[in-house]
Every structure is written in structure tokens, then in C-alpha cells.
């Protein structure tokens, strides 16, 4: 009959309202106002459109959201944005997700799998999300005698190093997180960390198969590092610079692949070996040692390592596209060169994300 709760008392209702108001005012004055003053006193606020950005000015955004546009624009040129979003972590994570998506679809076609093709009704778009939730909801099992701190640290270090790798890659003119004058050497330095992480985690897991896989990974990565480094020497000689942006810029008119086809092929092969992809998947030989140095990782730890791996794959594809050979600033030859190598028609100048999605 009545929609009001039977125990309803107007006085108590009003009392609860006062209670709420009391807590809101208390929290605002004890937490909110101090935060405002800490911001005002300690953080150097930017000047936007000739106006100092204060928290009080920020309040006016609620009335007029278009006032945030200059702030967003100025934020886009800060290092933090570069690190977090565009040429940095977020962009690389998106690319990694797209790579996983496309690769899973290819594998599903070949292996007659259903999920990646139909999950989510539209082209299996929910499969990735499902994978993520599945990995997150799985129990993390650590072997009994494992070296726990290193074992926990392994996936994080792997993802972090992949992130450090991302930082060096120029994505568009002027859009690069870190632009050291010896960027190419920094790339080699970062590549040198992956075998160490692999063999550390393999040793920490205290399992025979991870150890064998880790040693194989170590030897393979170390073995192919020299051809990788030497295959890029020709590019350095031709462009006369170790800075990645300048190397890209030097190929404005000619791709260096025109002069260095052997180097390009060697680079492609060595990068496959560095990434432990087929046919260089000895470290992860499924038929012998389950998953190589990843055998003991379960749940989200495995997920993090896979995220890092796919990030590196994306980066290597960008390198393959940008540093040595298949690159253009203009989109003249872009449509001609679509082929087996994904990043060939990588469009450098106009729109950065769209060709990426199109060219996997």
C-alpha cells in the first residue's frame, strides 16, 4: 500500500540529512581545503591564456567545460602526458592489445577456435577483455622453493623494461618520450636487459624446465644480439647519426632498405630470434619444456609478461618500420607497399594511430 518504509520517521530522515551534511563539511574542511592549499602553495601552476590556473578557476570548468581545452592542449606537451599516454605507455599498450587481438584471430582461423572470432558478437572484440579478466581471476601459484621476491619482481621488471624500450621510439615528428643523441645505443642497452630478466626469473622459480628454458633464452638472445647490432650499422653509416629521429628524418626521400637489403633481412631474422617467435621458439619449446622460462608463471604474472612481450613486438615492428628501412614521412608510397611486412605502409606524418590499426 505505502511506498514509504514502515519504519519511516520524518524526524530521523531530517536528522540523517543533517548528519550527511555534517560529514561532507567535515571532510571538505579537513581534506578538501588542505589539498587546495597544498596545491596553491607547493605546485607550480601553469599560466594558460594569460591566466594563472588556480583551483578556483578550475571550479569554473564545471560551468563551462570548453574552458578545459587550452589546459588539455598544454597538458599534451608535458613529459607526463608523453610518458603515460601518447608515444608512451598507453599507446604501446593499445598497440599491444591490437596485436594480440589480430594474432589471436589468425590463430583462431588456423586452429578452428571459436572464441576470438565470435566472442562479443562482433568480430570477437570481447575476447581480449575476457582473457584479461580470466588471467586476473586465476590464482597465482608460486613454487614452494622459489625465490619469492625475484619471482614476484620478474614480470614487473619485464613490463618496466618494455616500457623503457617504448620511451626511445619516435612515433611521429617530435613525438618521442626520450630523445637522446645516442638513441640507437640506448635501444641496444635496453635489449640487453631482457636475457638477464629471463634468466633471473628462470633461476628464481626453482624448476628444471624454467631453468633450461631460461638458459636457452639467454643464449639465444645473446647470440643474436651481435647480428642485430651489426645489421643496423649500415643505417648508421648512411644516415650519419645515432639519434632515432634523425635516422628517420634521413629517410625522407629514400628508404635505406634500397641500399641495405641484406641488412634488412638479417635484422628481420634476428628480431624474430630476440622475440623468441617461431621459428626461433627454442626457449619456449612446447613439446619439450612446456613454456620455457614462463612455465611457473600463473595468472596475472603470466599476463604481465605477455603484455610486455607484445609491447616489445610492437616496438620491434615500429623499429623495423621506422629506423632502418620501411619508412616514409609522406604517405606517397604507403599504399603501394602493403604486403607481408606489417609496418611497411606505416604512415609517419599524418595520422599515427590509424595506419597502425590498418597495417597489422
Amino acid at each position, binding site marked *: 500500500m505505502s511506498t514509504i518504509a514502515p519504519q519511516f520517521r520524518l524526524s530521523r530522515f531530517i536528522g540523517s540529512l543533517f548528519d550527511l551534511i555534517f560529514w561532507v563539511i567535515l571532510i571538505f574542511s579537513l581534506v578538501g581545503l588542505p589539498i587546495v592549499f597544498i596545491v596553491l602553495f607547493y605546485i607550480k601552476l601553469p599560466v594558460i591564456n594569460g591566466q594563472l590556473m588556480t583551483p578556483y578557476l578550475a571550479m569554473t570548468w564545471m560551468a563551462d567545460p570548453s574552458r578545459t581545452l587550452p589546459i588539455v592542449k598544454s597538458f599534451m606537451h608535458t*613529459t607526463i602526458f*608523453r*610518458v*603515460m599516454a601518447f608515444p*608512451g*605507455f598507453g599507446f604501446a599498450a593499445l598497440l599491444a592489445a591490437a596485436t594480440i587481438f589480430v594474432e589471436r584471430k589468425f590463430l583462431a582461423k588456423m586452429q578452428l577456435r571459436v572464441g576470438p572470432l565470435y566472442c562479443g558478437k562482433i568480430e570477437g572484440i570481447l575476447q581480449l577483455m575476457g582473457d584479461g579478466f580470466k*588471467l*586476473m*581471476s*586465476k*590464482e*597465482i*601459484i*608460486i*613454487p*614452494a622453493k622459489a625465490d619469492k621476491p625475484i619471482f*614476484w619482481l620478474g614480470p*614487473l*621488471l619485464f*613490463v*618496466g*623494461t*618494455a*616500457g*623503457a624500450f*617504448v*620511451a*626511445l621510439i619516435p612515433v611521429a615528428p617530435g613525438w618521442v*618520450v*626520450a*630523445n637522446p*643523441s645516442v638513441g*640507437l645505443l*640506448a635501444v641496444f642497452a*635496453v635489449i640487453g636487459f631482457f636475457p638477464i630478466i629471463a634468466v633471473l626469473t628462470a633461476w628464481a*622459480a626453482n*624448476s*628444471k*624446465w*624454467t*631453468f633450461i628454458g631460461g*638458459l636457452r633464452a639467454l*643464449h639465444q638472445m*645473446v*647470440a643474436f*644480439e*651481435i647480428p642485430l*647490432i*651489426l645489421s643496423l*650499422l649500415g643505417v*648508421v*653509416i648512411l644516415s*650519419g647519426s*645515432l639519434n632515432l629521429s634523425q635516422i628517420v628524418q634521413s629517410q625522407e626521400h629514400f628508404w635505406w632498405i634500397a641500399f641495405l637489403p641484406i641488412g634488412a633481412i638479417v635484422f628481420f631474422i634476428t628480431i624474430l630470434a630476440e622475440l623468441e617467435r617461431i621459428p626461433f621458439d627454442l626457449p619456449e619449446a612446447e613439446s619439450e619444456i*612446456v613454456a620455457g622460462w614462463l*612455465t*611457473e608463471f600463473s595468472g*596475472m604474472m603470466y*599476463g*604481465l609478461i605477455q603484455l610486455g612481450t607484445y609491447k616489445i613486438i610492437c616496438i620491434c615492428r615500429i623499429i623495423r618500420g621506422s629506423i632502418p628501412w620501411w619508412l616514409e614521412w609522406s604517405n606517397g608510397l604507403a599504399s603501394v607497399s602493403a604486403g607481408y611486412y606489417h609496418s611497411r605502409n606505416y604512415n609517419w606524418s599524418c595520422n599515427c594511430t590509424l595506419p597502425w590499426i590498418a597495417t597489422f
Partner: protein
Amino acid sequence: MHRFLYSPTGLLATLVGEAASSFSPILLLFTFAIVATGPTLILSRMIAPRRTSNPVKFLPMESGQVPQGEGRTHFMMQYYSFVLMFVVFDVASIFLYAWGSSILDLPKSATLPIIGFLAIIFAAFAFALYQAGRKNIW
């Protein structure tokens, strides 16, 4: 200004701190990647089931067999000759990069020493390969 703060490169003189600051975003992104993905491990630890511990569950994976002995075994890889060659070529590649990145500014006469250098390296490499084959290391 102190010499160690100051590395003159041609006409442009860059401060050492400036050169170092071009590398600092790498560390920043390294940290951010860990900070951004680390919580997923904590989240996973929070939502994933952690059933009663069964000692078998925490054994190292060996396809269902009970593992015997230590996981950190010692075995012969016979990789020494290769590692030696790797070290030689690693160092050589550094010199090659130093030469290759400045080749446009070098006189033509500078090509001969680098060819001599490569000749020495490759001769040593061939000798090492020969020895490795003769002693049947691989």
C-alpha cells in the same frame, strides 16, 4: 665551469646534466609501467581464489610427475668459445659504431685502419671457429 660538468662537442657545448636529462624519461616510463601494471597483481591476489593449500599444487611443474632433486641443476652447455667470440664482437661493434656514426666527417685515409681492425677481428674469429671445430666443442 668545471670540466667534468662540461663536455664540448664541436661548437655546441652541452651540459652533462642536459645530456642526462634526455635519458631521464626512460627511467620515468620504466617506473610508470611498473606503477601502472603492478596493481593488477594486487587486484589478482584480491579477487582470485586461494583455496586450502595442497602441497602438490606448489610443486614445480613437470607434467604431473613428482619432481626429484633440485630445480637449479648444473649441466654442461659448452658455450665458452661462443661467449668469448661474443665478447670480442661486442667490443668490436662499439668501435664500429663509433667509426660508422662519424664516417661522414672522417678523411678517406681513416678507412684503412678500420679495415685492418676488421681483418684482425675476423682472423681471430676464424681461428676461434677453427679451434672450436678441431676440439669438437660444439
